[in-house]
C-alpha cells in the first residue's frame, strides 16, 4: 500500500535505513579517526545522505557507479559491505581495495563500483568511457557519475559532458551541489551559478533537485535514469545539498558561519524523512530504534572485522602495479 508520500512502509524503511547506515557509519569513522585507526584524508558525507541513497534507487546491479573521495555513502548505498569498507579504511588486506586505497579509493568491481577518485573531475571521463563500452556493446546500462559542484570549474567536466552528449552515451551526471568546494563557495568559483545551464550548453537535459529530500532525489534520478537507459543520451542532475561537517578532518571551517550550518541542519535529510514517515505512520519510534540497533550491530561487526583484519605482507608491496601472471 502506497501513501501520500508515494511509497510503502517497506520502501520507506529501506530508504531510511540506508541513510542512517551512512550517518552512523561515518560517526563511527570520526571516532576511529581520533583513535588513529583510520588515517590519511577522510571526507564525510553527513548531511548529503539523501543524494546517494535516492539516486542509487534508480540503478540496477548491471549499472555502474563512479564517485569521488567523499564516497563512503555511495559505496554503502551501492551495497558494498560496511565491513569491507571499514577494513579498507583500516588499511587491511580484507578491505575492498586490500588496504591500498583507503577512504578515498573504495572499489568493488563485482558491484560495478569504480571508485573512489581523489582528483576533482578526474573520474568524469572514466564514466564516459564505461558508458561508451555499454553503448558499443548495445547493453542498456546506465553509468551514474557523482561529483561535487567544485568539479564544474574543471576542464575535464566540460570535455566529458560534451563527449557524452555528442556521442549520446548513457551517463547520468549527478552533481552534488553542497555549495562549497573546500572553502570556496560556488559564487566565488562560477560566474554563472545555475549549474543546469552548464549542461544546457551541451544540449543535455538537466534539472535541479532538492538533495535534502530522498524522495525527490529518487524520483528525479528514476526519471533521468530511465530516459538515459532508453537511449535519450546523458542527463544531468543538480542535487542541491549541504555538508554538515568540515571538508575533511583538517578543516577549521573559517569560510562559513555556524549559523549557516545550523540553518541547513534544520533540513536534515534523515530527521525530516523520519518525521514524514512518522506522519504517514510508516514508521514509529520503536521501529526507528530497532533499525538503529540493527545498524549499530552491523557497524560493531564491521569494526570488529576491520580490527581482526590482516596486513598485506610487505613483500607484496609491488603487487598490482602490473597485472599478474598474464604477460
Amino acid at each position, binding site marked *: 500500500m502506497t501513501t501520500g508520500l508515494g511509497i510503502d512502509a517497506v520502501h520507506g524503511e529501506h530508504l531510511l535505513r540506508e541513510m542512517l547506515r551512512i550517518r552512523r557509519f561515518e560517526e563511527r569513522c570520526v571516532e576511529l579517526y581520533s583513535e588513529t585507526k583510520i588515517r590519511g584524508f577522510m571526507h564525510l558525507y553527513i548531511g548529503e545522505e539523501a543524494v546517494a541513497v535516492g539516486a542509487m534507487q534508480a540503478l540496477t546491479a548491471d549499472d555502474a557507479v563512479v564517485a569521488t573521495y567523499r564516497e563512503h555513502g555511495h559505496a554503502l548505498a551501492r551495497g558494498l559491505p560496511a565491513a569491507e569498507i571499514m577494513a579498507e579504511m583500516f588499511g587491511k588486506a580484507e578491505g575492498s581495495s586490500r588496504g*591500498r586505497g583507503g577512504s578515498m579509493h573504495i*572499489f568493488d568491481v563485482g558491484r560495478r563500483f569504480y571508485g*573512489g*577518485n581523489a582528483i576533482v573531475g578526474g573520474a568524469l571521463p572514466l564514466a564516459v568511457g564505461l558508458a561508451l563500452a555499454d553503448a558499443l556493446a548495445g547493453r542498456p546500462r546506465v553509468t551514474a557519475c557523482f561529483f561535487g559542484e567544485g568539479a564544474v570549474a574543471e576542464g575535464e567536466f566540460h*570535455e566529458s559532458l560534451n563527449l557524452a552528449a555528442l556521442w549520446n552515451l548513457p551517463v547520468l551526471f549527478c552533481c552534488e551541489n553542497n555549495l562549497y568546494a573546500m572553502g570556496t563557495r560556488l559564487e566565488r568559483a562560477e560566474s554563472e551559478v545555475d549549474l543546469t545551464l552548464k549542461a544546457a550548453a551541451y544540449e543535455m537535459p538537466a534539472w535541479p533537485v532538492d538533495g535534502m529530500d530522498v524522495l525527490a532525489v529518487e524520483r528525479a534520478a528514476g526519471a533521468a535514469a530511465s530516459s538515459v537507459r532508453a537511449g535519450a543520451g546523458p542527463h544531468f542532475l543538480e542535487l542541491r545539498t549541504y555538508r554538515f561537517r568540515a571538508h575533511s578532518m583538517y578543516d577549521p571551517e573559517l569560510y562559513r558561519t555556524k549559523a549557516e550550518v545550523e540553518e541547513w541542519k534544520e533540513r536534515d535529510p534523515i530527521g525530516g524523512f523520519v518525521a514524514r514517515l512518522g506522519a504517514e505512520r510508516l514508521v514509529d519510534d520503536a521501529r526507528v530504534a530497532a533499525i538503529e540497533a540493527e545498524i549499530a550491530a552491523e557497524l560493531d561487526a564491521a569494526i570488529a572485522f576491520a580490527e581482526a583484519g590482516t596486513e598485506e605482507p610487505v613483500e607484496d608491496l609491488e603487487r598490482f602495479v602490473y597485472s599478474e601472471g598474464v*604477460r
Partner: protein
Amino acid sequence: MTASIAAALSPDVAEPATTTYREACRAALRAALLADERVFLMGEDVGRYGGCFAVSKGLLDEFGPERVRDTPLSESAFVGAGIGAALGGLRPIVEIMTVNFSLLALDQIMNNAATLLHMSGGQCAVPLVIRMTTGAGRQLAAQHSHSLEGWYAHIPGIRVLTPATVDDARWMLGPALADPDPVLIFEHGSLYNASGVVSPDGSGIDIARAAVRRPGRDVSIVTYGGTLPHCLDAAVRLADEGIEAEVVDLRVLRPLDDAAIRATVARTHRVVVVDEGWRSGSISAEVSARIMEQSFWELDAPVERVCSAEVPMPYARHLEEAALPRAPAIVAAARRTVRGG
C-alpha cells in the same frame, strides 16, 4: 557494430614484405581491428581526415565510425574515456595526435590509467593502448617537438614502447593490445616515411626485450626510436675509423631490459647512450645510472650521453639540427670512450 563485425570476419589482405613505417602502423591497426571486435581506434582526426600523419587513412571506410572514432579536441576526456572503456571490457586504441598534446591528458594517464589497478587492490586492470607521434627534426618549433617518451617511462603502472623499425611498427601493437595493462606507444615522426622489411608473422617480436641492431665489440651505442638511424649511421662512420660499435635498440623504455644492457656492457665495456630527450633527466640518465649500479666494475670508461640540447626546440633548421643528437656527436662520444678524453 554489426557492419564492422562483418568487416572483421573478412579475410586479411596479404601484406607486402617491404613497406614504410607508416604503412606498417596502419597494417597493425587494421589487423587489430580485424582480429578483435573489442578493439576500436579513437582520437583527433583519425577518421575523416585520415590521421594527421595519414596512418589511419582508409580505416574509417573499412571499419565504420563506431570503431574509428573522430573525437573533439578534448585530450583529457577522450584518453579518460579510453580508460573507462577499457574498464568496461573494450580494448581501446587511443591516438593522441602528438606527444605535445598528451600533457593535457597527463592527469588521466598518471592518476588513473597507471594507478587504478593498484589502488583498487588488483581489481581494475586497464587494457588500454595509447599511441602518439613523438619527436623533433621537422622544424615544428618549441611546442611541437617534444620527445617525452623517456619522461613517461618514469611512471609505474604503464609500459612504454618505442618501435624504431618497420617490423616493430607492424608487430608491437598486437602484444600491446594483449597486455592487460596500459601501454604507451611512441612513433617518431621522422620514421613514418622510412621503409624496411616486415616479417610475415612477427615471430620473435615481443614488447619486453631490447634488440641488438648491429653487433660490435669496441663500444655499445644504446638508443631507441628516432635516433636509431643516426646511431647506425654513426656506427658506419666509426667502422671506417676501425671502431666496431654495437648498436642496441632498447625498444621498451619501461620496464627497461636490464639483462640486455648488462650483456652489451659485458661485451664492450664502453657505452654511449643516445636519446632525443633533453639531457637532464633523460632516459639516458637512467640507463647510465643502471650501468653504474649493475656493471660499474666492468666499465673501461665512463658512460657517455648524447641527448638533445636543453632548449625548447628552435624553428630554424640549423639551430634545430644543432640541438639534436646526430651522428657526429655520437661518433665523437664513442671515440672518447674508446680512446679517452
